[in-house]
């Protein structure tokens, strides 16, 4: 198992597109070749060697140290391997992730996991708005995989979410699960205003009661077997966002958003 470490020398003045820096794209390349890779930064191009100290041998695991919020598109379209980021990251973390595992020790910016297809994205800190959401012009947000956020998430978590699971260990902002098409979002803490706004399908699992839009209809409390399947699927995950619907727990089921004929569900375990 080869491992390469890229250590950011100093925070760049403006954001840098780090999408070329994934284990699968760097695999087999020498340190010299990697140092010569150009990264887009505003209207300029910077080489990896200008921004990072390079250590180790490229292969399955890539570590980015000393990261900061100016590093955008980390792990974008990554296809396999493991990417470990020490520090904060910018926007579009794991956008279009195809497979593999990304872990960020700090916080992440907006549009993390947008267009993600499969794999696992784990952010230990907070994330910005539009987690797993569709970017402007796209009809669907995240398409699959597992996203774990130990901290808080911003507004519009899972906007247009199509498939996959998002676990938020802290709180989530306004319009959580808005326009959601399918998939599963679980928020362990509180959510902001109008969760499930214009929701079509899918599941939003909450652990505490909250004010729901008037267009969600109460379907009563139930013991839903699929929550056991979800809990078992997530059983190995050791995080604050781990499943909070233990076997046999009843949930209150609200269906909506009936304002647009939606059949999504908000399940409240409390």
């Amino acid at each position, binding site marked *: 198992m080869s491992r390469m470490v890229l250590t950011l020398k100093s925070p760049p003045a403006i954001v840098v597109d780090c999408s070329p820096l994934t284990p699968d794209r760097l695999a087999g390349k020498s340190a010299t070749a990697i140092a010569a890779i150009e990264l887009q930064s505003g209207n300029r191009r910077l080489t990896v060697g200008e921004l990072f100290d390079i250590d180790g041998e490229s292969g399955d695991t890539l570590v980015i140290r000393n990261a900061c919020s100016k590093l955008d598109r980390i792990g974008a379209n990554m296809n396999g391997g493991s990417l470990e980021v020490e520090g904060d990251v910018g926007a579009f973390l794991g956008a279009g992730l195809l497979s593999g595992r990304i872990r960020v020790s700090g916080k992440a910016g907006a549009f993390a996991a947008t267009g993600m297809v499969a794999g696992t994205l784990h952010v230990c800190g907070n994330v910005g708005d539009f987690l797993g959401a569709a970017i402007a012009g796209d009809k669907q947000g995240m398409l*699959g995989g597992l996203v774990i956020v130990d901290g808080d998430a911003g507004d519009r978590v899972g906007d247009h979410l199509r*498939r*996959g*699971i998002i676990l938020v260990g802290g709180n989530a902002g306004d319009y959580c699960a808005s326009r959601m098409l*399918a998939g*599963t979002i679980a928020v362990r803490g509180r959510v902001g205003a109008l969760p499930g706004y214009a929701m079509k*399908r899918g*599941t939003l699992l909450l652990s505490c009661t909250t004010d729901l839009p008037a267009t969600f209809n109460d379907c009563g409390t*139930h*013991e*839903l*077997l*699929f929550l*056991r*399947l*979800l809990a*078992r*699927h997530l059983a190995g995950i050791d995080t604050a966002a781990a499943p909070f619907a233990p*076997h046999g727990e009843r949930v209150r089921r609200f269906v909506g958003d009936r304002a647009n004929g939606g*059949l999504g*569900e908000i399940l409240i375990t409390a």
Partner: protein
Amino acid sequence: MIINGVAIDETFAEAFGMRATRLIITAANLRWAKHAANAATGFATSVIGCGAEAGIERELSSDETPDGRPGVSVLIFAVSAKELAKQVERRVGQCVLTSPTSAVFSGCDGEEKVALGKNLRYFADGFQISKLFGGRRYWRVPVMDGEFICEEAAGVVKAVGGGNFLVLAASQMQALLACEAAIDAMRKLPGVVMPFPGGVVRSGSKVGSKYKALSASTNDAFCPTLRGIGSSELSPDTGAVLEIVIDGITEADIRQAMRIGMQAVCAIGADGGIQRITAGNYGGKLGKYHFHLREILA
């Protein structure tokens, strides 16, 4: 070969390639899982008239099932993947979906699949919900006691059907008791089912009939009441013959089940009225698999 006074014929059972699937049926408790499984594997003794051969493979504890509830695994066999798909859909749709608290999951992998929730979801009339966990798709179908959970599809594997042996005894009850002992031992084995009632069949058949409409008819050579007519294979002191038919996932599964079953019969032995063990075949020309009794018991 004679074991404990029981003569083992120099012959073989002839078996055929089939397609099979394993389903895991769970419920709130084992009682209701068995109700669903018994219904789904009912009327499945022979592909000739039932379209499928099926049975309960074993009971599963709650830590062996996908949803953490008690359950049973069932094996369903058919002559082709197409026929298997038809049978599985009908049986799950009519017998598992309808059974209180039930859920059904795939119990085996295979490149070929038979649909479970893929088609049954339409019963939900648009209220069905898909959940994709760990690469497996489950369908949630609202029903009157809550939700029916059903995996999208089940794997299909190549399997073997028609392993068999015949027990010849001095009396009907002695043959029956020996077969009961054999079935009790064989049901502890994985990968096999004995699809006839109680695992035992009394109406062994031969190919063809004097009546043109029938493709099979009674195995007159082994009918004790026809012993004196001429073509009988029975000795004058044989009072009854019973057969055990075995379907298995692999050839080795059937071989092991036949060994355990025949050993149980031989353990009763001549003192219990058991005279002979033989097997049914078609001269070896029709079936791909031959299970030689003496090799198995050697």
